[in-house]
C-alpha cells in the first residue's frame, strides 16, 4: 500500500537522524515558531470574516484592546462586540482546539501502531462516539441535562472509549501484536458500531437531523461552554502525547529493537493510544465527526519535515489547528448566511489533497 511508504520507509528514517542533531533542533524550533505564527495569522484572519458584517478595523481594535497594557478606542457597538466575543471567537477557539486534537491524535495513533492509516476513524473511536451520541439524542430524553449541559458529550466520550477498547480487545484476541490486525479489527468494529447508530437513527426519524448534523461535523458553540468543556481533556492528552515523542521515535525501528534499547513498546503504545483516544473523544463529543484531519495533516507534515515525532507531533497539532480554522472560514462564509457542514469542507479539500500528497510521496520514493 502506497501510504505505507509515507511514514516508515527506511530512507526517511535516515533523514530523521540528521534532524536529531543540534542544528536540527534549532531549525525544528524555528519550524514550530513558524507554525505558531501561522495559527495566529489564520485565527486573526478568520476573526475578521463571517456572515455578520463586522468591519475589519473594528475587529482589530477589539482584539488589540485585549492585549495586556494596550487600550484603543472601540468602533464596534455592543451588539457587534457580543457577536465577536460570544459567537465568532468561541467558534474559532473551538476549531483550533478540535483541529489540534484530531490531527494530533491521528499522528499519535500512526506513530504508536507504526501504521500510516491509523486514525480516529479506523480504530472505532469516532464510530463509537457517534453511536453514543445517537443513542442519547434519540432515547435519552431524561439524560439530556446533566450538570447543566447536555449529556451528548459524555455519551460520545463513553462510546469512543468503548469503540477503542473493543478494537483493542478484538485485535489482540485474533492476531496478537500485529498493528495490521489492529487496524482490521478497527474497521470491523467501526462498521458494526456504524450499523447500530444508523439503525438507531432510522428508528427515530424525529431526531435524525440532529444525529445527521453530528455525523457531518459541526462547530456549534454556546458561548465559551464547549471550549471550557474540552480544554481540560484535550490539553493534558496532547501534552502526554508530546512527552512520548522521543519514545515513539525509538519505537519506529521496531518493537524488538526498541525493547533492546530499554523501551517498553507495549506500555508506550498503551499510554499514547489512551491519550489520543481521550483527545479524540473530547473533540468528537462537541464537534461531531470531522473527517480527514487526523490523516491528512500528519502526512503532510511528514512530507515536509520527515518522520521524527519530536517535530511531527507538535507541527501536526499546530497544522491541524490552522487547517480546521481555515476550513471553518469556508464553512461559515461560502454559502453565507447558510452554513456548510464542516466535515463536508474538510473532506472536500482534504480528500483530493491527500491524493496529491500520496502521488508526490510515491514519486519522491521511486
Amino acid at each position, binding site marked *: 500500500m502506497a501510504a505505507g511508504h509515507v511514514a516508515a520507509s527506511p530512507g526517511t528514517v535516515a533523514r530523521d537522524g540528521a534532524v536529531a542533531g543540534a542544528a536540527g533542533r534549532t531549525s525544528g524550533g524555528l519550524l514550530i515558531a513558524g507554525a505558531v505564527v501561522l495559527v495566529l495569522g489564520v485565527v486573526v484572519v478568520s476573526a475578521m470574516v463571517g456572515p455578520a458584517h463586522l468591519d475589519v478595523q473594528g475587529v482589530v481594535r477589539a482584539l488589540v484592546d485585549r492585549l495586556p497594557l494596550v487600550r484603543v478606542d472601540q468602533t464596534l457597538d455592543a451588539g457587534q462586540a457580543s457577536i465577536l466575543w460570544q459567537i465568532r471567537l468561541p467558534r474559532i477557539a473551538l476549531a483550533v482546539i478540535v483541529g489540534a486534537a484530531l490531527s494530533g491524535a491521528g499522528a499519535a495513533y500512526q506513530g504508536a501502531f507504526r501504521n500510516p492509516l491509523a486514525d480516529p476513524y479506523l480504530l472505532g473511536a469516532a464510530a463509537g462516539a457517534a453511536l453514543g451520541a445517537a443513542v442519547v439524542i434519540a432515547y435519552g430524553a431524561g439524560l439530556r441535562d446533566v450538570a447543566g449541559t447536555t449529556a451528548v458529550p459524555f455519551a460520545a466520550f463513553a462510546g469512543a472509549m468503548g469503540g477503542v477498547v473493543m478494537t483493542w480487545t478484538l485485535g489482540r484476541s485474533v492476531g496478537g501484536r500485529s498493528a495490521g490486525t489492529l487496524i482490521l479489527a478497527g474497521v470491523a468494529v467501526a462498521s458494526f458500531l456504524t450499523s447500530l447508530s444508523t439503525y438507531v437513527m432510522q428508528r427515530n426519524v424525529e431526531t*435524525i437531523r440532529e444525529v445527521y448534523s453530528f455525523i457531518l461535523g459541526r462547530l456549534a458553540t454556546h458561548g465559551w461552554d464547549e471550549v471550557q468543556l474540552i480544554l481540560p481533556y484535550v490539553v493534558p492528552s496532547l501534552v502526554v502525547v508530546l512527552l512520548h515523542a522521543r519514545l515513539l521515535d525509538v519505537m519506529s525501528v521496531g518493537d524488538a529493537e526498541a525493547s533492546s534499547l530499554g523501551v517498553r513498546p507495549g506500555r508506550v503504545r498503551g499510554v499514547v493510544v489512551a491519550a489520543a483516544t481521550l483527545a479524540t473523544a473530547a473533540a468528537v463529543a462537541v464537534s461531531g465527526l470531522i473527517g480527514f484531519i487526523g490523516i491528512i495533516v500528519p502526512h503532510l507534515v511528514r512530507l515536509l519535515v520527515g518522520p521524527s515525532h519530536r517535530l511531527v507531533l507538535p507541527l501536526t497539532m499546530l497544522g491541524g489547528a490552522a487547517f480546521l480554522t481555515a476550513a471553518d472560514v469556508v464553512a461559515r462564509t461560502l*454559502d453565507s*448566511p447558510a452554513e456548510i457542514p464542516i466535515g463536508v469542507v474538510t473532506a472536500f479539500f482534504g480528500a483530493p489533497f491527500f491524493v496529491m500528497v500520496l502521488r508526490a510521496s510515491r514519486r519522491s520514493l521511486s
Partner: protein
Amino acid sequence: MAGAGTVARSPADLPGITSAAKSGEIPALSRNGGAALLPSAGDAAEPGRLARGRDVKSSRKGLLVRHTSVSLVLSASILLAACGGSATTADPGGDADTPAVAAASEQPDAAGADAAGVPLFPVSVTADNGEVTIPAAPVRIISLSPSATEILFAIGAGEQVIAVDDYSYYPPEAPVTDLSGYTPNTEAILAYQPDLLVIATDPGDLVASMEGAGVATIVQDAPADLDGVYAQFETLGVATGQAAGAAMAVAQIRTEVDGLTADLPDAAVGLTYFHELDPALYTATSQTFVGSLYALFGLVNIADAGSADGNPYPQLSEEFVVEASPDLVFFSDTYAVSAQDILARPGWQDVAAVRTASVFELDPDISSRWGPRLVGLLTTIREAVMAHAAAA
C-alpha cells in the same frame, strides 16, 4: 409582557373545528437541509408522542381472522408482514370497528353513491403523481402521511381508514400501526389489502409497486400555501366519496383563517421573525408552506436574505441570526430547547426578540404539518404578533 412560551397551545385548545376536524403533516421535514441524503424527518414528531404512537394498536388480532374464508391469504399476508419487520401489528383484519373484510374491498360502500343514489365511482383525481383513478369507493384506506391522516378524519373519511403510519397519532382515533411513511415497506402495506394509499412523498418506487399491485395511490407533498391545502382536502374528498365533508371543512378553515388574519395592529406590519426548526439554527424560508402562513400576517422572514441558493430549509449562521435581530423568534424543537434556553443564549442579549422576550414555542407537529390544525398555528402566530404590538 408576552411571557415566552405561554403561547404554546395543546391541540385541545384549538378554536373551531370540532373533534374530528383536525389534521396535518410535515412540510418542513420532507425537504429539510439534510434531506438529500437521508430519509429526512427533522422534527417530524415530538418524542413523547412517538412512544405513545408506537405502543397503541399493537394487539395481535391475527388469530381473530382465522375463521374467515380467506384465512390462507391472511396467513400469507401475516407472514409477509412479519418478513417486513412489522409482525406485531400486521393486522389485516383491521380494528374492532372494521371487522375482517379482507378480500371484500370490491364491495361498494354507502359512500360510493351521492344523496340521490347515483354512483360516484370510478373517479379520477389529480395528485402530485399525476392523475389517479379510484375504481370504487375506498373502504380500506392506508395513510402514510400524518397530514393526510388528519385531513381524512377532518373530511369524514375516518371510518374508511384502516391503517396509518407510525407518526399519524392525530386524531387519537386514527388506527396507528408501525407502518413507516419514511421507509415504507411494500409487503407490509399490501398485507393490509388496502384499496387506497395516501403518502406524502414517494421515497423510491413505492407508487409503481402499489400500482402494480392494483392499489390506487395518491401522493400529496407539502403544498406551497393555503390554497394548496384546500386543494388537498378537495382531492381527498373526491377520492373517498366525501366531497361534501371536504367542502365543509375547507369552508370552516377559510372562515377561521379570515378571522385570525383580520384587524392586525399597524405595528405588526413588517415585523421580522426567525422560525427555528432546531437549535442548530435550521430554518424555513418564506418559500415554504409554514413561511406562507407567516406571510399572511405581513411578517418578514430573516432567512429570505440567506436563501440565494434556493434552499428553502437552510441552516443559518448564528452570527447572522443575531445580527439580523428578528423581532419575533418561533421555535418548534421543544424537545431540545425551551424559550428560556433561547433567551439565555450567549451573544443573543441584544437580539430584538430576546430584549422583548418575544420568543414563542410552536407545537412541533402542528407547525410541520398541513391540515386542519394549521388554524392552531395561525392562532399562535397571531397571539405572538398581538403580544409584541401590545408591548411595543
